[in-house]
């Protein structure tokens, strides 16, 4: 954990520097009339300082209890987490192309099979029901404007 803390603090420092760099390209203004870049620059600097403190704190102090904990990145079912994330991202990116109804149907099929898959008939039925029901309830009754895909739904 300690090592990860230190690595994270480096990321924080880098991000902070990037923010300051971007902020400097905007008008900073003066102390008594701050421009758009003023507070972002300040925030970036703060991030750098805090990240350094965080890294040093991780380096110099040892909490015996935390040291005994395994790395947080050893995840028993990481495949599940990754596949759900990937599925969600693809869904979001394809939402406009496929339209809500189809995209949601596909998403539900994938998600329902992540934990203890129940066999294809059940999965397909559930996916259809869920996609269809939400389309009607939210799309028609509650007037949420769902994205329409190439087939117009």
């Amino acid at each position, binding site marked *: 954990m300690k090592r*990860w*803390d230190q690595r*994270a603090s480096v990321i*924080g420092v880098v991000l902070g520097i990037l*923010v300051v760099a*971007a902020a400097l390209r*905007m*008008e900073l203004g*003066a102390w*008594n*009339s*701050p*421009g*758009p870049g003023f*507070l*972002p620059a300040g*925030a970036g600097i703060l*991030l750098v300082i*805090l*990240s350094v*403190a*965080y890294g040093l*704190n991780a380096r*110099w*102090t040892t909490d015996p209890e935390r040291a005994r904990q395994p790395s*947080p*990145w050893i*995840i*028993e*079912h*990481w495949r*599940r*987490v990754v596949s*759900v*994330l990937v599925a*969600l*991202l693809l*869904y*979001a*990116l394809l*939402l*406009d192309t496929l339209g809500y109804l189809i995209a*949601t149907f596909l*998403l*539900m099929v994938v*998600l*329902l099979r*992540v*934990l*203890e898959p*129940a066999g294809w008939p059940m999965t397909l039925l*559930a996916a259809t029901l*869920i996609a269809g029901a*939400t389309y009607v309830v*939210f799309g028609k009754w*509650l007037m*949420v*404007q*769902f*994205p329409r895909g190439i087939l117009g739904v």
Partner: protein
Amino acid sequence: MDLAGNVLAGFQVSLQPINLLYAFFGAGIGTLVGVLPGIGPAGTIALLLPLSLGMPPVSAIIFLAGVYYGSMYGGSTTSILVNIPGEAASVVTCLDGYQMARQGRAGPALGMAAMGSFIGATLSIVGLMLIAPLLAGVAREFGAPEYFGLVCLGVMMLVYLSRGSVLKSLISAVAGLILSFIGQDLFTGDDRFTFGVVELKDGLGLVPLFMGLFGITEVLANLEAPIRRQVYDARLKNLFPTAKDWLDSRGAILRGTGIGFFLGILPGGSAMIASFAAYAAEKMFSRHPERFGTGVIEGVAAPETANNAAAQGAFIPLFALGIPPNVAMALLLGAFVLHGIRPGPLMMEQHPQIFWGAVTSMYIGNAMLLVFNLPLIGLWVRILKVPYKMLFPLILLFSVIGALSVRYSPFDVVVMILFGAIGYVLRKMEFEATPLVLAFILGPMLEQALRQSLIISHGSFTIFFTRPIAAVCLGLTLAIVIANLVPLLRAGRKVIAAQETGD
């Protein structure tokens, strides 16, 4: 006409069967909308406006107002059950409410949320009746410097929201602050951090942000565990808050009402900020602050009471000043206007029956909501028994719909998912999402108030000291900083001492 006479006249209007019906439907729809993530009272009121055009003015107001304060009841439901805030004002309820649900105490959490909401709302309505004009006067005293002072105080609350390392909370907060800069600068119109992406011109959406960080992250975190371990403790311990729960919460309820009402009055103050502030204040005054975040009942009572108190308080600037403090109220103002009434300084004189009719109807509506919501607790709790393999796709889908319902833009869905991933990483590294969200909200307010103040004062910082309210708030902020700094310094000294003696 004296107060009692006004109230009586008001009840004569609001107790008419047709208005009772409108109150019921309005509050009912509001609750439903509050439960559903993403779709908020503002969008719903916008949808219902055309419908309300056919109603007599007072009925229209009763109906639409019901939607607004009703949504403050429903928002906590999903927060508690699945860690997804149904409403921005219910984000903080997730902290302890969800933990309670995992421990099998979803019933008491939901019950306390409902009852705290009722108490907060009712006491606020009393305030609204008694001192609306006076409070309006207070609201008018708040200019940019005063807001700056208040928001600084709010930023201090950040410190109190952290469960773990203060340093990590601060980093989260600064990250939230930086994220809040994305978008068009109010003052110059320049684009900040938008990288040419058109959808970022208005900044990151708050709803996709917190739904990703709270809802999606939670699902991802739950997926990594083996199926054998239950997400929710199957043994249900009581369906309603116990006597002990009530005892523990009495301070939270009272303080929550006060904080909520006060913040609700201010144009720009909101139910969401009230909920954060009440939670933080409760933790600040608690004898066991370290237990907050593990599932303490006060952690639910405080924000839920506050957000309803704030929602009722929000009617004051609308009725007495004609200035809507948020989007939903702006729509209500529109409804008024379409019916030919102009809320504001003259409304109470020119249309007393509308004012008192609406206000008394709020009592009735809140009472209905309490009666309505309590039996539903049994139903909600049953939802938790659905096997997680079916539940989590539904949770994710509702989050998606919620994100879509803000701007109908798939971009927001992408943002939500990205923040779900980011939230997951943050959680692994033991960072907290709450300070990030709070800083994201308060950051722009702080910057705006600061820059506005400096323009008004022609560049002089003394404005913050010559204006009494601002000075008081800043003074309090400083006091809290110092009070917190002392123990930190002591701890720091210990670390250095330990270093010197060789770890």
